C-alpha cells in the first residue's frame, strides 16, 4: 500500500485544522510499520483516513491511497470492498467495537457465514480455529460469552480473531495495547508478531509509547503536527535519532534499564493546529532552532543511509523526497 500526499483537514468554526498535512508512506507485505506521536500529532487521523472513517467535521482534502493498484480515495467502490476485509482496524477500547448484547460467537460467525455461506456448526468450528490462533485456550466456551465477561486482553484477542476471519491483509492497530497491563500488552505484541510471521500480513501499529515501538515495529515514522518528521528502520530511529524532536522525546522517557539523574524535558507543549508556528512546526520548542527554522518550512530529506528527516540541520546532505 502506498499513501501519497495525504491531507485531512477538520473544518471547525474556529478555522481549518490541518490534522494530517501531507503524509507519505508505503507499507510492504509482512511489514510492521510503527507510527509514533504525541496526542494531536495526527497519527490516528492519518490511519482513519486510509479507511475513510474520519469523524466529522474532518474531510480528506487531498491525496492518494493506492492499494493493489487501485486508488481507494478516487475509486468509490474500492473502499467498500476492502474496508473490514482486506484492511481492518483494531482500537484502543475493543468494547466500543463489540456489540454488548450479542455473544462473541454470534459476532464472530456473522462475517464468516455471510462471506463463506457456511452452516451454523461449520461457522462455529471456523470461529474456534481463529480463536485458537490468537491463543485462546477454551474457544468453545468463549463463543457463548458476552463481551463484558471478558478482560481487556481477551477482547483485544477477539478483535484480532475477527480480523483473521476475514483473511485480512493489512491490520491497523490504533493504540491497541495502550489500555492493557504491561504483561498483557507484551502477550498481544508477541501474538501480532507471530501472526505476521505466519500469515505475512502487514501491520500499521500506532502508539505514543517509544518502548512499544521498539518491541514491535520494523520501520518507524515519527509524527508531529500532522507531518512525518522522521522515518527509518526502528533500530536507526532508536539508536541514531536525527530529528531534534525524536531525540528530545527519547531523552524524556524514564528508562527501565538506565539510570538518569534528571529527565530532560521538551519545553512548552504541542502547539494548537490552528496556530502553528511559521516555518518548522517544532521550531518553538526546539533547542537547535535557527532563524531559518522560524521562517521556512523544512522538507523531508533522504540521507545517504536511507534515513529520512524533516529538519534544516540536514539541508544539502541528501535528496529532497517531499515538500
Amino acid at each position, binding site marked *: 500500500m502506498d499513501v501519497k500526499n495525504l491531507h485531512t483537514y477538520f473544518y471547525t468554526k474556529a478555522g481549518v485544522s490541518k490534522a494530517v498535512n501531507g503524509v507519505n508512506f508505503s507499507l510492504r507485505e509482512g511489514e510492521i510499520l510503527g507510527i509514533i506521536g*504525541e*496526542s494531536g500529532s495526527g497519527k490516528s487521523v492519518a490511519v482513519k483516513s486510509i479507511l475513510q472513517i474520519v469523524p466529522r467535521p474532518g474531510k480528506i482534502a487531498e491525496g492518494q491511497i493506492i492499494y493493489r493498484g487501485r486508488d481507494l480515495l478516487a475509486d468509490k467502490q474500492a473502499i467498500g470492498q476492502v474496508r473490514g476485509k482486506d484492511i481492518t482496524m483494531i482500537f484502543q477500547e475493543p468494547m466500543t467495537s463489540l456489540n454488548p448484547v450479542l455473544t462473541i460467537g454470534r459476532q464472530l460467525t456473522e462475517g464468516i457465514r455471510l462471506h463463506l455461506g457456511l452452516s451454523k456448526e461449520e461457522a462455529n468450528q471456523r470461529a474456534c480455529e481463529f480463536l485458537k490462533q490468537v491463543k485462546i485456550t477454551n474457544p468453545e466456551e468463549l463463543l457463548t460469552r458476552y463481551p463484558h465477561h471478558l*478482560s481487556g*486482553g*481477551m477482547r483485544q484477542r477477539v478483535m484480532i480473531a475477527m480480523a483473521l476471519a476475514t483473511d485480512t491483509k493489512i491490520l491497523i492497530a490504533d493504540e491497541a495495547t495502550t489500555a492493557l*497491563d*504491561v*504483561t*498483557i*500488552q*507484551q*502477550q498481544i*505484541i*508477541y501474538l501480532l508478531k507471530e501472526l505476521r510471521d505466519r500469515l505475512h500480513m502487514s501491520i500499521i501499529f500506532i502508539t*505514543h*509509547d*517509544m*518502548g*512499544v515501538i*521498539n*518491541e514491535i515495529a520494523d520501520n518507524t515514522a515519527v509524527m508531529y503536527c500532522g507531518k512525518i518528521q522522521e522515518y527509518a528502520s*526502528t*533500530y536507526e530511529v*532508536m*539508536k541514531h535519532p536525527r530529528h531534534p524532536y525524536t531525540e*528530545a*522525546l*527519547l531523552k*524524556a*522517557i*524514564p*528508562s*527501565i*534499564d*538506565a539510570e*538518569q539523574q*534528571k*529527565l*530532560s*524535558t*521538551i519545553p512548552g*507543549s*504541542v502547539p494548537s493546529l490552528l496556530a502553528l508556528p511559521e516555518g518548522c512546526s517544532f521550531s518553538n520548542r526546539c533547542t537547535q532552532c535557527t532563524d531559518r527554522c522560524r521562517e521556512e518550512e523544512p522538507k523531508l530529506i533522504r540521507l545517504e543511509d536511507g534515513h529520512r528527516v524533516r529538519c534544516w540541520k540536514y539541508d544539502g546532505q541528501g535528496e529532497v523526497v517531499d515538500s
Partner: protein
Amino acid sequence: MEEILRVEKLEKHFIKETGFLKKEKKVFKAVNDVSFHINKGETLGLVGESGCGKSTTGRMIVDLIQPTSGSIFFEGKNIADRSRDRKSQLEIRKNIQMIFQDSYASLDPRLTAGQAVEEALDIHRIVTGKKEKREYIEKIFADVGLQKEQIDRYPHEFSGGQRQRIGIARAICLQPKIIICDEPVSALDVSIQAQIINNMEEIQKKYGISYLFISHDLSVVKHISDRVIVMYLGYIFEEASKEELFARPLHPYTRALVEATPSTNPDLPKRNRPALKNEIDTSLIGVCCPFANRCDSVSDICWKQEPSVTEAADGHKVRCHLYK
C-alpha cells in the same frame, strides 16, 4: 531515617450484593495483609497492574475509603479508626494530601485555579488576609511552574499538564508531610510527563515532603522512587530499595514485570516469547498463591498454601514459597 507513616495489616474487603433480591453477598478482597512504612522525605513507589489494590491502598490512607481492618500510624498515632472529631480529621487531612490521575475531574470547573487553592487555604486557615493569600498563592504557583497571570483562569483554559500542576499546587499549599500521588503522570504525553516528574522532585527537595507514588509504569516508578513495593491482587509481593529491587528482583512476578516493560534500547536482544502467560485470576485470592496460575516457578505448595512474607535480605521482603 525517621519514619512518618506506617501501615500494618491493612485489609479492605468490598461486599457486593448479588442474586435474587440481593440476598447473596459476595466478598471481594481488594487489599490483603498490606504492611509498609514511609520515611520522612522519601518516595515510596507502589507499582502493580490494574486490580492489584494500589489505588485502594492510597485511598484508605487519605480516608477516602474506610479500611476493613488494620492500622495506619501517622507520626505514631493510629489514624485508621479516625474518630469523627472534626478537628483531628482536619489536622490529618492537612498533613496527608493527594494528587489524582484525572486532573480535570478533580478540579471544580467553576473555580479559577487561584480559587481552588484558596479554598483549601480557607478551610485549613493556613494564611489569612486577602493580600497575604494572593502573595502565598503566587509563591505556590511559582513552585509548580505556573505563571502569576494564570491564577485567575479556569480549569478548561489549561492543558492537561498545567492542570496537573494546579493539582500539585493544591496539595502543597497546605504544607503537607505526605502526598499520595495516584498515577499523576499516566494521562500525560511523555514530554509533559518529564516536566511534571522533575517538578515533583524539585518540590520534594525544597519542602521535604514524602511521596507515596502509585503507578502502573515501572520505568516511572524506577526513576522517582527511593524504595519500591510491588503489589499483585491485593498482596504486597516484594519490597526493597530501588537499587536492590532492580538489580536483584526476587519474586517471579517482579522479574516478569521488569521483562515485560518495553525498553527503548534497540540493542537489547528481543525475547521470543512473552514473560507471563495467562491473566489475573481473582478466584485464587485467599486460596493459594494468587500468582500460581501465571508463575513459571510454580510448585505443588503454591497451589495449596498462601505464601507468607520472608525477609530475604536487609530491607528486602518477598512473599513467595521459593524463599522459605
